[in-house]
Structure formats: C-alpha cells, structure tokens
C-alpha cells in the first residue's frame, strides 16, 4: 500500500485522522514506535476510527492508547484487567474493533489469569504486548519476561526463567500468534493489519525496548541486541481486497495465506528460513529452538488458524448483527403472554 501516491485511504481518511494525543513516554521508547505502526496499520486498512475500542491496563504500555486513533474510544482500566474489560466491550458491541495494548507486567504477571482466559475464549481482539522485560513506570524491576541472568542498571541479576507468551498462547489454542520487534515497522504494520482482519484473539508479542531501564548492550530486549539478533522468519506483507495491486520488486514466489475476509498474508522467504504459519508443529519448533538458544529471537507470524476453524467468542455466543448495546426494550422484554407463562410454573 503506497501512501506516497494517495493522501487518503480507501474510506477517504487521512493518516492524521488516526493520530492521537502527544506521547508522554521517554524519548526513544519502543512503545512510541508501536504507536506509530498501529496508526499506520489502521490507516492502511481503512479502519473506521469511531468503531475502535482501545483498551489497556496499567503501565507505560497501557498509557499508549491515548496516543493513537483519537477518534476511537478508549478505556484505560486497572492493572492486569484489560482482557476482561475488552471481552465485555467486544460482546456488548461486536462491531467494535477492539485493540488491547498491554505490557509484560500487565500481561505476564498481574494479568496472567485474564490473558490466558481471553485466549481460551477467543475474544475477537488485537492484543499487543509491548514487551520490554522490565517494569518501567515503577522504575526498573524485573518482569516475568526478563531473561534468566539478565541484568538491570542497578546491577541486579534476574534469577528466574522468563515466560514466553507466544509459547503459552500457542498451547492455549490461540489462532494468531506473532512475535515482532518495535523497530521493524514493515513487519509490525503487516502483522497489525492481519491481526485486525483476523476474527478472534490475535497476539502480537512485540519486543519494545525500554530506553531508560533495560537498554543495556547485553539485554535481549535492548535495541542493540535486537538489531544484531532479530531473525525475521519471513518478509511479511498484508494485502486486502481493496489494496492497490502490488508491484513485484523481488524475485521468488511468496507463500500466501488466505484469510476468510478475502485478505492475504504474504510471506516471502528470507535466507534459510522457510516457515508456514499454518503448521502448528513448525511454530512449536521455532519457539523451542529459540528457548534452547538464549538471546535468539525469531520474529514474524508464528501461527495462524482462521476463525472458520477456530470460532471467536461472539460466534460461540450466537450474537446477531445488532450489537447488544443497541437492542431496544421491544427486543429485550418478553411479551405479556410469555411472562405469564413463566409465572404459571410458580402457582
């Protein structure tokens, strides 16, 4: 999609229409990069901003929904509780595009229970973890995704193994599991667009360096490490039916994964890597390989299973086209006859 030739997207909105308030995070924060990619992805996909529900918990990452899609509706809830709030909103109005932004503390510690159950229920939402391996807002404590043996600026060493959220989500049956790096804009935008198009829970575990507390050269969640060690599984593209035809610039036939809404995720082989994200075993193998090799980070779409094979919660709940929020009394109150029938059983 070329924004260079078009001032507006296919719904007639400019990129500025997807902007938000000015960030208050540290200069250079990975989270601000992700904010930019969310704006870009929503713009490219022509998301209706009024239908966007931005949800978050507590932490640096959870502040960011104020910084994108200001025409959307936001709810910055309590620490670790975004998954339940997002699930409630998603069921109340199934037309909403629910975007959840969380952090490693908010998801992998205090909110672990809710995260796990949102995956299990397959809430229709984009769930981005801005993962920096450290508690930023409370000034530099280790998080549950910090590597074992990692150091922070104070010199302390982390004694516990990290929790791999992608591995967890994969094993919980999540239909969209991706890992990315805030610095890889092209991959992030393609993944966010695909996640929005996906019906069901879409996890993007985005490594997003904390420049203030966890950007040491040997930190696997720091910029330098990621620039040197991030191995992209594929060159990722997202093509929606309304997108302009792509001009082939590179040789080779890409792998195309079709999505039920007519979109395609285009994956172009890079180097020796060849990963088919519909192959569960292959996704498991990648994560196992990364686990065995400390510091190795492979990014891209790890696993994808369409909603047709993995129905989202709103389908399981048999919701109709009219959002629950907009149903009127005449659709909600049983008739007098039905009411008398209920009471008859109690005489």
């Amino acid at each position, binding site marked *: 999609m070329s924004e260079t030739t078009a001032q507006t997207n296919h719904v007639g909105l400019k990129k500025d229409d997807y902007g938000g308030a000015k960030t208050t995070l540290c200069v250079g924060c990975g989270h601000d990069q992700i904010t930019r990619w969310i704006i870009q992805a929503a713009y490219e996909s022509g998301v209706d901003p*009024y239908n966007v529900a931005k949800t978050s918990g507590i932490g640096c990452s959870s502040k960011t*929904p104020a910084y994108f899609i200001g*025409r959307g509706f936001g*709810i910055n809830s309590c620490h670790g*509780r975004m998954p339940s*709030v997002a699930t*409630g909103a998603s069921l109340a109005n199934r037309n909403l595009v629910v975007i959840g932004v969380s952090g490693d503390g908010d998801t992998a510690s205090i909110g672990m229970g809710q995260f796990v159950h949102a995956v299990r229920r397959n809430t229709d939402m984009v769930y981005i973890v801005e993962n920096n391996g450290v508690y930023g807002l409370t000034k530099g404590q280790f998080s549950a995704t910090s590597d074992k043996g990692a150091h922070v600026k104070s010199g302390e060493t982390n004694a516990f193994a990290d929790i791999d959220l992608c591995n967890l989500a994969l094993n919980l049956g999540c239909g969209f599991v991706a890992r990315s790096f805030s610095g890889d804009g092209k991959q992030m935008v393609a993944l966010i667009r695909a996640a929005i198009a996906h019906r069901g829970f879409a996890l993007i575990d985005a490594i997003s360096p904390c420049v203030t507390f966890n950007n040491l050269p040997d930190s696997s969640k720091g910029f330098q490490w990621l620039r040197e060690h991030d191995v992209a599984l594929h060159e990722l593209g997202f093509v929606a039916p309304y997108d302009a035809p792509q001009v082939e610039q590179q040789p080779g036939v890409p792998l195309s994964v079709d999505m039920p809404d007519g979109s395609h995720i285009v994956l172009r082989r890079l180097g020796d890597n060849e990963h088919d994200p519909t192959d569960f075993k292959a996704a498991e193998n990648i994560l196992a390989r990364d686990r065995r090799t400390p510091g190795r980070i492979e990014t891209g779409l790890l696993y994808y299973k369409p909603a047709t094979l993995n129905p989202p919660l709103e389908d399981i709940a048999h919701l*109709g086209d009219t959002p*629950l929020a907009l149903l009127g009394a005449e659709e909600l109150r049983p008739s007098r006859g039905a009411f008398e029938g209920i009471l008859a059983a109690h005489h």
Partner: protein
Amino acid sequence: MTASTVVNDFTLSVATVNGSGSASSNTILAKTIFRMGVPVAPKNLFPSNIAGLPTWYLVRVTERGWKCASGRRDFTVAFNETTIDQDIRLVPPGGVLVVDEDIRKAEQVGRSDITVYAVPMGSIAKPFGPDPRLRKLLANMVYVGVVAELLGLDLEVLRQAVHDQFAGKEKVVKLNLDVVMAGIEHARAHLDASRCPFRVQRRNLTGGQILIEGNQAAALGALMGGATFCAWYPITPSSSLCEAFIDYAREHRTDQATGVARFAQVQAEDELASIGLVIGAGWAGARAFTATAGPGISLMAELTGFAYYAEVPAVIVDVQRVGPSTGMPTRNQQSDIRCCQRLSHGDTEHIVLLPAGPEELYELMQQALDLAERYQTPVFLMSELDMGMNIWMSQPLRYPERPLDRGKVLDKEGLKAAAEFARYKDVDGDGIPYRTLPGTHHPKAPYFTRGSGHTESAGYTEDAQEYRVVLDRLKRKIDGSTRDTPRPVIEGEGEIGLIHFGSSAFAVEEAREILSAKGLRTRSCRVRALPLHDEVMDFVRACKVVYVVEQNRDGQLADSVRLRAPELATRVRSILEYGGLPMTAQPILDVLSVGKREPVHV
C-alpha cells in the same frame, strides 16, 4: 382431631442428610400445603457440602402468613442417624416426631411428652427400588405419604404436586406416587393419626400468590429489566441467580429459527474478571450485571472503584452469606452492606438497594439496571442466602409498565444538537454528566476513559483543582440518587422505632404484631436504599429510642444512621442476630418485651 388439635400453625422440620434427594420431597410437601390455601415459609438449612452432612428443611405453616422462621420444630421427621439425638431433643413438648425405625425404635426415643411415630421407611420403599441408591431416594417419598396422612393433606393436591415436581417424566411420576401411596397406606394401617396434634385444613389464604426462590425472582427482574449481559463466577449462594437468568434468556431471548441470542453470558475465571467483563460491557452500552457473594465482592473492589470514578454503569448482586472469609457459606447474614457501600480504595460511595423478599428482588433488580445507567455508576442489589435460595410466598410479579431508563446517552443525533460534549461535565446541575457509547459516529463522540485523574472533558490531569471538580461532582451525584432510589417504608406509631432491611423485615413484622397485642405500639422504618433518605433521620427524630435490627455483629446499618445524624446517635441502639440461621421474631421480643437483653421502659 381433638379439641386441642392445632390447625395450620406449626413448623414442620425434616432432618436428613444432604445429597440424599430429599429436596423434591420437601418441595412437594410445602407446595401441597400452599395449594391448600394455607401460607408456608420454607427454609432449607443445608451444609456447605455435596453429600453426607446434616440438612434440615423447615416449613413454617401459619394462617397469618408469617414469612420468617419460627425457631421451632413442632413436627419433626427424623431421617438422619447422625443428628437423631439432637433432633429428638429439639421437638418441643406436645410436638410430634416421625422417626425412621431403622434409625431409632419408638420405645428408644425416650420422650413421653411428645407423640412418636416410628416408620420403617426403608422397608416400605424396598419393593419399589431394587437398587439401594434408588431406594434411598424413594424412602424420602415414604415420609411424604406419612406426613400427608398425619397432617391430613389433600390427596388430590398432593398428587398434582408430585406430577409438577417431575413434570414430563411419566415413569418417575408414577413410581413416586406409588411410594407416596405406600406411605399413606402404612400410616393408615399402623399409625394413629388422631394422636397427631397438628392438622392442615383448607383455607383460601394464598389465592393468586406464587412460590418462588429469590434468586429466580431477581433473575426474572434481570430478564424483564432488559439486562443483556451477565458475567459470573460460581459461588454459593448466588450461582443459581445467574443460572436462572441464563435459562430464562435462552428461552426468551433467543430467536428460535436462527439461534441468534439477544444476550451474552460469560462464566468468568474469577470475580476479578466477572466485574471486568461487566464494566467493559457497560462501558460499551450493554445493560450488564453480575451476581456474587462476599468473597467475590472482595475481589471486585479495585474495578468497582474504577467504575465509580470512571462512571461506568454496572449492577452487582450480592447474595450475602456468613463472613468474614469463607465464613459459613450456606448460612445467612446481612454483613456486607458496609463493605459494599464503600467498596474500593479512595473516597468511594455506591448506591445500594435493599430488597425484602422475592417481589422486591424482582422489582429492584429492574430498578438497579435503570439506576446504574441513569447514574453511570455501580449499583449494588443486596440479597441474602435466606431470600435467594429459599422458596418464598409472594404476590405475583407484575409485568413492567415503565420503559427502560437508558440514562443520559448522546447518540449521533443528540451530539449534532448539543453545543458541546464534555464527558464529565455537569450540564444539568444534578451531578450526572452525559456519555457516549463506543461506535458512535460523530466527531464529538469519542473520549478516553481512565481511572487516573481526569478533567471534565476526560483529559488526563494531575491538577488539584481539576481533580476536585470531578470528585466533588461525584459526591453530589451519589447524594442526589435518593431522588430516584426506593424510599423507606415507614409505618406505625409510638415512641419506640425499629429500623430494618432485607429479610429482617419479616421478623420485625411478626414481632411488632406480638408486641402490639401486648400493648406496646412501635414504629417501623424499612430502609430500602443507601445513601439513606432524609426520612430515615426524620423517623429517628420522631422516636424516643430506635432499634436497628440487622443480621451482623457490628450493627453496620446502625453505624450509618449514627453517622448521618450524630446528634441523634445516643438514641440509636442495635438488635443483632448473626448466628447464620434464618431470622426469627425472638431477638426483637427478647429486647422489647421479655427484657432478656436490654430492658426498655418507655
């Protein structure tokens, strides 16, 4: 029948083991008496256990229609080996004991002051159930027959009650009826019913009324009140409320042709999630509720405070049980009202509704949904185990005539007409701002909801003045809710006042009538909402002394009354009952007439 026979005024007690299948038998007995036109008040005293611990099912029978417990066990069916000695002891002189002969022979009961009937329940059931498990279930039907014969229950009414209990399962109906008849025949052949001092005689005192569990009534309130979303985590005594709602909604909110549902429900992973789901749904515009008990309330504290401050509608039903901690999960208390009114950290205050009985649970559940959206805040509906899980006699519930109140929601058209939209601004002077729902297509509509400091236009702030403006308005908003919350019910005259709420009301009603017969007139003020209405203070002012009757240790409502009117604090006293058993009139009589605790001389 003799001259001393007591007609329609006794309490039947069935002592069994939980999990033994006696619930059906007891319901059949209660329903039969009710359908003979005689009021009943059933109370199930059950343990926190699935099978094997003692259970008592009490049915108070009175022509006056008292709904509280009597505290007596005039006619006891003893079916539980482990509690047999206690059960024998608790029969008052002049009472009746029907005992399973396999547990205790008549001559071994050792009470000459009561009438004893020993019945070989198991032997009577044996021909009907070769399988021991089935036989055990059927033995419960034997006592139904025996009790029916001794009390003179109408056989046709009894038959119909058995039919209704096992509706649709004709084989089961026939088998159970056969066993009931065997019980009746045994009683006719071997027991002298004329020695039984209690009889039920037909009356016309229940016409038009219904029998319903409070949890069902509240669930029906949710259905009729337009609730579209229910999130819950299983906990006694609230689970059956949500389950009843789901059953009603599956039948009445599902398009039979397409299967499309006009409701959603989530059985959450815990109460942290159930309140989060409700808040998310309420924020997005669904009429959402959850039901829980004390431990769940504790877990909901943080998000409830968030909803108060961020102004998100939510209805929370607390079916109270004995606390603190796990407490006694299957016993009754009214001990969560302080906790609920102030749930969460910071300066937080919630609207709390205090229904008494199924009719009000039904009505106030609907009103709670309206108030939550009108005031954009969490609203607590305080039920109790006694009200929620027992069957109550009730006036028939009324079909709602009022439209649903969806509160101050600006849609696209409303926004076009409005000069401006600031989410947290008091436009109308009532402390209640306007809100928009996510998905509203208008440039003025979007706003950002946060639990951190915010301005009138929903912007982030750490400015002292901007923060205070919002916080002070919230205070005005909740204080002003007394405009719309149910007013106290005040009646009677005299210098002694009784303030009460919830299930205590039924004990107060009986106590007041007994006192009145003795010449002591009292006033009564049944509180139905917090914050307290001014009328409650006027009531205290009009009395020389006021007793706040409640089922908790600390006098939680009494404290609220004293805090509201410190100058009247010395005349506010407490009558407290918190052992977990269903409330009786006795604690009130103890204080006001017999003077066992704290004599009053007016």
